[in-house]
């Protein structure tokens, strides 16, 4: 079972995930692949919880853009589900679509 609780940066987390996934593929271990995906997702939610909370407070797209500008490319990438939720909420509130 992968243990990703100690990671504090998305970049290093993804490097470790890459290594673990290569090993799991080499071993043909589907259970390990599933565990890696689950643990990685949990670690991302933990590491980026402050950003997700800030996203929830944005009331327009300019504010959301400013928040995301402070993130690294890797952080922006892994935040996509949460950014989608924030964007959907803003366009619903501002344009009704």
């Amino acid at each position, binding site marked *: 079972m992968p243990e990703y609780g100690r990671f504090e940066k998305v970049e290093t987390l993804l490097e470790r995930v890459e290594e673990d996934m290569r090993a799991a593929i080499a071993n043909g271990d589907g259970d390990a692949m599933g565990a890696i995906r689950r643990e990685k997702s949990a670690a991302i939610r933990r590491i980026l919880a402050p950003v997700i909370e800030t996203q929830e407070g944005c009331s327009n797209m300019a504010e959301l853009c400013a928040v995301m*500008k402070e993130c690294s490319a890797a952080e922006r*990438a892994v935040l*996509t589900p949460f950014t989608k939720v924030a964007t959907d909420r803003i366009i619903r509130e501002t344009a009704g*679509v």
Partner: protein
Amino acid sequence: MNVMAEQMVGRPTIMQREPQFFGGQFGVKGSDSPLGWRTHPDAVILYVDSGHPNALDTNDGTDPTAPLATVQAAVNSSLLTPYSEIRVSGEVAEDVVTPDYATGPNYVWIRGNGISRYSPAWSGDDADTASLDMRAVGWRVSGFRFYGKTGASCLVLRHTDSGANDIAIRTVVHDCYFDGLTTGLRGIESHGCYDVWVVNCTFALFNNVGNTAFCMETTTTPLAIPYRNYILGCYFHDSDNGVEWSMNGSFILGCLFQPTGYAYAMIQVLNTSTVANPGDDNIVAENVFPGDYSIAGGYRPGAADAWLGNWADDTAEAEVGDNGITIARPT
């Protein structure tokens, strides 16, 4: 004696025809609806035909015999509301920019009014400007043959890169032919839109001297990389590069890739992740992946992607079963 009675008594008769009936042609002057044929109680169909003798951008566009001359005039029309449709005949020799989502309208269909993906053609105008620049939510594009441009994409999906409200999420592009014409730079470009569907499209002959042409490419992503994108049943062939669509939680299903084409060979065939835009958690299934099924061979996955149930002839790889079905992402 009426016709039926004459036939009953066996007398020779001259075949008689009923007078032809011309039903009301919605969209033609004199029809009951002043706004022409509508898709929705308050959504019109606007006709654009650059080759029509009566085409003028001062027409309201609801009458197919007096169409608008440009797609941009239709896009800017005050009649255009959500669920409206822009029907396009004749070559589109202009570069079109949609409004942003806040200006709207959103959910508009730009529809090539031909019978297949080969016509009408959308050649655009300026070689360094995208032919169709999409900035609103949920627009749909179908039935065009886009001609490649040397310095820009045929179609670009904005996602706050050009303005905070430029958001082309939920775009659907289907049944189009992206024809690189051997000098085209890019078919579709994304700046990170989510919920995008690219369905049953054909891409070919994107090539330039530096071999930096792509059928589809994710470029700058200031807000997010593509998420929940659906690339289904598309054909990518005879180009410098196939698809470099860095994305998360997305699906590529049932596509055909031709790494070695008739004229050109691909450097990158399918990338769902790059260093600049690290994608992940994608499912890639039921595609055809000829050639070297590896990162070196041009297939680059995200760390936790699942590339399962694709067909590959590189059975020497550990990720491809002896029966040619992939069981894991390439490494």
